[in-house]
């Protein structure tokens, strides 16, 4: 099967999965008690059932569930996710404005986490101090929850030393301030990934190192560095990729807390707050984006997998 056909097939299945997730989430939030209009009006005095009912009608929430579900799915294909009641704005616009921050966080954290993890994992095999670093710092980083790590970083670097802002986001138009605000959250997210990846990389390198082809490489006089890069690290990367894809998936979840601690307007915190006020359009929209992201990551990982290990793609 050609790569294009394979991708097309995976994308089609992915699309079906996205729609399934949408239907499940739609039905699930209908089952959960709590009404968006009631929640929205909960702090307005003198609100009686007649006001609630009038508002429900205005927002189309009085229509039967199947009709609303169908409307939603049809809207999805036109990239119309509906209007957020809380923000009085198209859910699509809100999500796209939040998405940039989330993607930036996830991509940077994944990049530094994975590259750093592979680097330190390799270092731990090749040098003694690298080995110590991994065996001491790894479990420590992994045992500290992300928000604690984030809070400690803020306390140390922002509140005490004043080197970096304590949180928040600056627009892209101010690149320096923007990057400054990303430093701590990216470190917070990337460290546990780096620790995990380093461990896996180390394990895989030790595993691959005993393989016959490594002996062949040495037996044919390749310099140590070439053998390491060409015949050990390259082969060790395949399982590392699998773990990386899993970590990347988990990263979306991890961003929720980091967004909170560092006051970043990302998708995770948006989804959490949307659930907290039953903002249906935002919930559906955020889930749509996140599930699409997951599926794309998985397809990308599979394609990368085939690239790294020809046995997968050729069979």
């Amino acid at each position, binding site marked *: 099967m050609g790569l294009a056909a394979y991708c097309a097939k995976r994308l089609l299945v992915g699309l079906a999965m996205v729609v399934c997730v949408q239907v499940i989430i739609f039905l699930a939030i209908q089952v959960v008690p709590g*009404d968006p209009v009631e929640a929205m009006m909960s702090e307005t005095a*003198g609100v009686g059932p007649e006001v609630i009912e009038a508002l429900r009608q205005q927002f189309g929430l009085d229509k039967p569930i199947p009709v609303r579900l169908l409307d939603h799915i049809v809207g999805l294909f036109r990239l119309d996710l509906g209007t957020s009641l809380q923000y009085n704005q198209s859910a699509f616009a809100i999500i796209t404005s939040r998405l940039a921050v989330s993607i930036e966080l996830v991509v940077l954290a994944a990049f530094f986490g994975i590259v750093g993890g592979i680097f330190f994992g390799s270092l731990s095999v090749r040098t003694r101090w690298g080995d110590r670093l991994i065996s001491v710092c790894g479990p420590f980083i992994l045992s500290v929850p992300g928000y604690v790590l984030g809070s400690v970083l803020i306390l140390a670097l922002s509140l005490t030393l004043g080197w970096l802002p304590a949180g928040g986001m600056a627009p892209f138009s101010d690149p320096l301030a923007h990057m400054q605000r990303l430093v701590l959250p990216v470190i917070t997210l990337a460290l546990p990934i780096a620790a995990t990846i380093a461990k896996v990389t180390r394990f895989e390198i030790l595993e691959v190192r005993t393989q016959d082809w490594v002996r062949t490489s040495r037996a044919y006089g390749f310099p140590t560095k070439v053998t390491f890069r060409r015949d050990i690290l390259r082969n060790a990367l395949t399982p590392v990729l699998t773990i990386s894809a899993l970590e990347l998936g988990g990263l979306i979840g991890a961003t929720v807390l980091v967004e909170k601690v560092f006051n970043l307007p990302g998708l995770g915190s948006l989804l959490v707050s949307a659930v907290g006020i039953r903002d249906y359009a935002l919930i559906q929209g955020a889930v749509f984006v996140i599930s699409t992201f997951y599926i794309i990551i998985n397809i990308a990982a599979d394609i990368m997998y085939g690239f790294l290990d020809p046995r997968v793609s050729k069979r």
Partner: protein
Amino acid sequence: MGLRRRTFLGLATAMGVAALTGSNSELALARDSGKTLTFGLSANVGNLVYGPSRGAAQFIVNQQLHRGLVKFDENGRIVPALAESFEAVDPSTYRFTLRDGLTFHDGSPITSATVKASLDYLANRSVGAAIYAALSTLASIETPDARTVVIKLSKPNASFLDYLADPNAGISPASALASGAANWIGAGPFKLQANDSGVSLTLAKADTYYDKDNVALAGIKFIYYPDSTARTNALIAGDVQMIDFVGWEDFDRVEADKKLVLDAVPGPFVYMLFNTERAPFDNPKVRQAVAHAINRENVVAAAFYGHGTPLNGIPVSPGNDRFDPKMGELWTYDPDKARALLASAGVAEGLKVSLLTSSTYSFFRDMALSVQADLQAVGIEAELDAPDWPTYTASKNSGKYGLAVAGGAPSVTGPVYLQAYVVGAPASSFGSYGYNASDIVAHIQAGEALSNDAAARAEYMKAVDIIRDAVPFLPVAQRSQAFARSNTVEGFKNLPGFLSITGTGYMLEKTSIR
């Protein structure tokens, strides 16, 4: 500007300020106080919507962009705003004279017709306006000329002006008067300059504002900090110069910093609701027993880290002559009396009830835990039900509880606010489920019809007497509501009482930076 920030950061901000003030830099230079305030705001206000209440953070933004006929001054009094003068012809008829030459930020004129259109829109039930309770009795709005507006109500309402000073009652242009429309253009002291959706909102001083000469700031940059710890951190780190809604757990941290000022006042209150349709709380004696069983000091300590005021009666607004101080002294903490009341009501030891609270707000949960212990001491086993906010709201509105914890922030200062809390759900979502308050409402309405404060006070007292015995709702404590700011920020004041939420936002137009 925070001293700890690195030079280039300061430079960046300074450049930002320069850009911001560029349009009216002459003025700013001339008065030398044209600085921009960076404000850490407790919620993302989204796309402003005209009419409905969307929480305290949006009130603050509304009060900068929009202006109504009247507003609150630093003493909590109603003063003219877009209206040059006003007059209560009688408790159900109000006449306003608009200032000359009023315009919105976009230059379009504001006439009596504009005002009528706005208020008519808010009187529409399906808008869900914050002041709908007051406008539901609107009889007519007359506009004899371009600067005169006469509002007639079908029932007297002595607090009508309070409603018109509400942050959600600014006068808005026709384009905002539709569902889903954005409401960014107003008649307030600041206009929208940039909206970095989800991150920040930049406002610049508006030249169209009627009182622009007394506006000190060149602009305000609101940065959203939904997390209370992150908000306080931003203030301490110098990322912002002022924040609203300081978390109670952070009071000490702010007070310990000499460069910061904590401005806390007794603000909104927390209270208990009863399901009066079901035993045992259908019996007033049982409700009275609860009123005597709750140790309010403990609630303040548990829910607000000690930053609050116990309430032994209904919350009264300071400086409002329509309240009698006795209204604040209805019940005392007396477990023995509570037990006696329960015994006389025939309630057996070990009564089991459900106690509804919400896990969304920690102070709700902590208050419920404190109340649970107090009830246990008098022989009532309260089982906690702590779902998230929408589920809590649904349960509260549909009577799926025995006892419930609730929070209230009245938008008017006069005793008429009680009406929303005594009338039972589902008619009023703030009240105890199934409670019939027609007798209390009758006295309140009678009070509203009287223009003499003393006579009205006596009428309100009759209502409160019924409240004492029937306990339709049980106020427990007033929580401290705090703003915090750098000591370089001057001219700001947190208004005490309910106005902390609905009135304090008006203070920013007088705020300046040293």
